[in-house]
């Protein structure tokens, strides 16, 4: 019987020949990512009364959720992390200027095929974009991994998602995922490993693969996965990671899946997730015209270079509607440098955008919050009640192209009329 990606990846990290779905195994992850939660891990370690770290080189810390600090308390928490990193010789420490952890660590070449990665963030699933097994854990568990090197994991069942492309005009990886989440619901893949197959995911850019695997979380997934290929290898090579520094893991052709789903991207229209759940998804024509106060282009789901370029294509030479705020938060410092260099930064500014420093920004409620009764169209991955300010505000989710069209019109708008 063939094996899925998750079965092979966890068997390797557990140091055993094979594992079966449902089995609980002790896994030694290759990388432990912690973001703003890092200070909680450090405090937990103090409580444990130990300063022994299993393998300092597996720790990566990124100060992303609140950057820069807004209160003395946060400044103190961040200082704690900085000092801890310096004292323990943590080389993969990224301060408040770096951007969103997931994107920063990917760009730095730390995410490689076949790795098992845990992170104090549910969207750690994103690392499947490069063929790694990424999954979210709480801060106590991450601390435990710092100290003992391992944690328990239940071997997941796998779900096979087949996406057929090429996508229809004006449709993106975000629309594909919203459609899938709407179809399967927010617990459609709970505890499962979601593998993306089909003609669309083959040949797809790493940026789009990140969007797929990031949003797999909103199906309840344990991890996401796109098969590594030439695109993965050349992305890594550009970042100085030669093929002999990783070993790819591919699912067997006869692997067993708990269920499968198919999305036909060729006939898809842009999709919108309506308040207050990510699976409350409607095709755009059902929500066109909904008035917005703010548009947010940001988050680990959709603030990568390609996402900003997509929005800029529509915003070029146009102005955003009066009375609407357009907030753009690039995902990383590297992306800021790129958009400054190739003119996208000016296009966004001239259209009327407020461009923030890189980081989680409004997605984490760090700035860009809303007043009672306000509405935001966001490119992020969550629209939960109260996530961006007032509990009485509403968040709609859409693609970068939808965001750009919406900012111009002042209400939810179909990007296809601008293309």
């Amino acid at each position, binding site marked *: 019987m063939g094996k899925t990606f998750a079965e092979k990846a966890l068997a390797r990290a557990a140091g055993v020949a094979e594992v079966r779905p449902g089995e*609980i195994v002790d896994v030694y992850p290759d990388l432990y990512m912690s973001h*703003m*939660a890092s200070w*909680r891990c450090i*405090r*937990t370690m103090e*409580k*444990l*009364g*130990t300063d*022994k770290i299993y393998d300092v080189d597996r720790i990566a810390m990124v100060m992303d959720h609140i950057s820069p600090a807004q*209160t003395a*308390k*946060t400044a103190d*928490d961040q200082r704690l992390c900085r000092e801890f990193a310096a004292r323990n010789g943590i080389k993969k420490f990224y301060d408040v200027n770096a951007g969103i952890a997931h994107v920063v660590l990917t760009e730095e070449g730390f995410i490689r095929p076949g790795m098992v990665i845990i*992170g*104090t*963030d*549910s969207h*750690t699933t994103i690392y499947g974009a490069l063929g790694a097994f990424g999954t*979210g*854990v*709480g*801060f*106590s*568990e991450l*601390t*435990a991994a710092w*100290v*003992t090197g391992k944690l*328990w994991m239940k071997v997941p069942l796998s779900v096979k998602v087949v996406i057929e492309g090429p996508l229809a005009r004006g449709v993106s990886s975000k629309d594909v995922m919203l459609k899938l989440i709407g179809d399967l619901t*927010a*617990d459609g893949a*709970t*505890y499962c490993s979601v593998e993306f197959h089909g003609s669309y995911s083959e040949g797809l850019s790493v940026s789009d693969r990140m969007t797929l695997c990031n949003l797999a979380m909103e199906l*309840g997934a*344990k991890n996401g996965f796109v098969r590594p290929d030439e695109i993965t290898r050349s992305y890594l090579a550009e970042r100085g990671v030669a093929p002999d520094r990783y070993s790819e893991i591919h699912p067997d052709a006869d692997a067993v899946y708990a269920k499968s789903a198919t999305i036909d991207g060729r006939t898809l229209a842009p999709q919108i997730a309506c308040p207050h*759940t990510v*699976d409350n998804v409607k095709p755009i024509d059902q929500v066109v015209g909904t008035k917005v106060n703010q548009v947010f282009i940001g988050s680990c789901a959709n603030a990568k270079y390609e996402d900003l370029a997509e929005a800029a294509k529509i915003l070029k030479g146009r102005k955003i509607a009066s009375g609407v705020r357009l907030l753009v938060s690039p995902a990383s410092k590297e992306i800021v440098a790129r958009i400054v260099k190739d003119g996208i930064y000016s296009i966004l500014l001239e259209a009327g955008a407020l461009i923030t420093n890189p980081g989680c920004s409004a997605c*984490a*409620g760090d700035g860009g919050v809303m007043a009672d009764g306000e509405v935001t169209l966001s490119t992020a991955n*969550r629209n*939960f*009640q*109260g*996530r961006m300010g007032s*509990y009485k505000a509403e968040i709609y989710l859409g693609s970068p192209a939808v965001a750009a069209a919406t900012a111009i019109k002042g209400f939810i708008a179909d990007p296809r009329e601008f293309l």
Partner: protein
Amino acid sequence: MSEKIGGKVIKFGNSVDTDVIIPGRYLVSIDPQELGKHAFEPLGPEVQKRLWSSQVVVAGSNLGCGSAREQAASCLIGAGIKAVVAKSFSRVFFRNCINTGLPAIECAEAAEAVADGGELWIDLEGGIVEAQGKSFRFAPYPQSLKQILDAGGLISYLAKYVLPQQQALKRS
């Protein structure tokens, strides 16, 4: 006969998310007592008052979906909750419950049967939930998870069992 945990129930629907359980703005704290004051704040003061006088949170499917924030579990402990029972859990929330020492029971029938404001008691050893005068079975925890729960959470478990062992190994 093992000890039972439980008490008065506050009942919610499906897909109650982490941002509703504890809004992101309060994650600057890791003190369960402090967090407990803000648990379920987006749903308003009436719900919060009922939460504080309850001992069991019952919900439908996908309880705790969303963020990996561990405070979604610890805030409930701070609010005086002794156990959570649901049709199903999101995986990170389930882990966080076990790791903070909060029993999380997957038992669809019990979650369905019990009334809001009613009583529910859990026999963890026996794998039985009692509610509305009926008993419902659930699959007891595997040994590895049970040890963590019994110790009062992952960190206490490490402090009590794992670290002393590591130190003993080093000494020998």
